[in-house]
């Protein structure tokens, strides 16, 4: 008899290497053992497909990697903020991440301009100074930085009497709406005219872009900001 007959008969084990699991038994002769194996196989399958789902979802979870509890604590540092729905910190985590991304890109542009491959604090300062919607951060930017940027712009815009250009709050403020200017947190107070600077028209940016030469990290001269934490003692 030929032994190369692939024996489908369960009575004789075929000589070739056995598959990891025994062939499915004929229904009538199913033993509890086979049931168990099948069950385990199913469970394994479920386990792995679940893992795959999880992995696909990890990207989403990665986006929520900023810890919600910490975000809540930061929010509650503002006494005006009382109760927060469960969904809010989720949004904050994501918004924060997007914000950091924006700031990163703009800072990087500045580093590129100066042909550096290391992002420095002044790159961030420049990004803040240049971007209107980052006005709320202006207080953490050392004054020197503002002046340097402004100097580049002031030549084009025509400096004001004090040498520090003016700042216009973002438009479209609803009645009693959000904070304006510098670091007015939670209080719809009047615009505080102390750290102010201009928002130039787009053409001006081009020339600033080209002419703005030396801007390497030569600040940190102790020009401190409102945020004591940030003042990097370099």
């Amino acid at each position, binding site marked *: 008899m030929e032994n190369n007959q692939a024996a489908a008969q369960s009575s004789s084990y075929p000589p070739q290497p056995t598959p990891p699991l025994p062939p499915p038994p004929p229904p009538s002769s199913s033993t509890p053992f086979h049931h168990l194996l099948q069950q385990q196989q199913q469970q394994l399958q479920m386990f792995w497909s679940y893992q795959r789902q999880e992995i696909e979802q990890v990207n989403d979870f990665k986006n929520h990697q900023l810890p919600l509890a910490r975000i809540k604590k930061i929010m509650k540092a503002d006494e005006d903020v009382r109760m927060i729905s469960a969904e809010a910190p989720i949004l904050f985590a994501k918004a924060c991440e997007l914000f950091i991304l924006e700031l990163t890109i703009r800072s*990087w542009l500045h580093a590129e301009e100066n042909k550096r491959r290391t992002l420095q604090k002044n790159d961030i300062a420049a990004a803040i100074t240049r971007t209107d919607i980052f006005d709320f951060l202006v207080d953490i930017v050392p004054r020197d930085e503002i002046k340097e940027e402004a100097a580049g712009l002031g030549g084009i815009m025509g400096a004001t009497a004090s040498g520090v250009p003016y700042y216009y709050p973002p438009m479209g403020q609803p009645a009693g709406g959000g904070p304006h200017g510098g670091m007015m947190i939670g209080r719809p107070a009047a615009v505080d005219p102390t750290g102010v600077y201009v928002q130039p028209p787009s053409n001006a940016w081009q020339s600033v872009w080209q002419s703005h030469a030396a801007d390497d990290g030569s600040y940190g001269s102790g020009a401190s900001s409102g945020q004591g934490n940030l003042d990097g003692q370099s």
Partner: protein
Amino acid sequence: MESEKKVVSEAEELPRTIVRRVVKEKLSNCSEDGDLSVHKDALLAFSESARIFIHYLSATANDICRESKRQTMNADDVLKALEEIEFPDFLNPLKASLDEFRRKNAGKKAGAAKEKEEKKKRKLEEPSHDSGGGERVENEEDQDGTGDA
């Protein structure tokens, strides 16, 4: 010089490793040739900026919430706040995140609610089966037939 900020900061900070990861990942997109690095002070600046952003957004959302005579800041307040502070580009990704979160939660809630329902049902069924033979839950040990009816 290289002060590691051992000072107890009154303000909570965002975890630096996470901030660092976000920044570095973005930088690796920005420049394909070679690694961009980030100065330590710059990382602190990112961290601090993000923290202030949270305050800014939070205060704005809070105002919006109060205007509507509510006590609890909700997702809608946050979304409106983003528009107000002129970050409209964030709206779409945030809404997507929110939808995702709500879907997952709905699933969990439905599951939990179902379980509760089923538990209730079982509880209701038990006392009514007092007349012999139906006390599966209580007399499991008696399945070999010695149960007293």
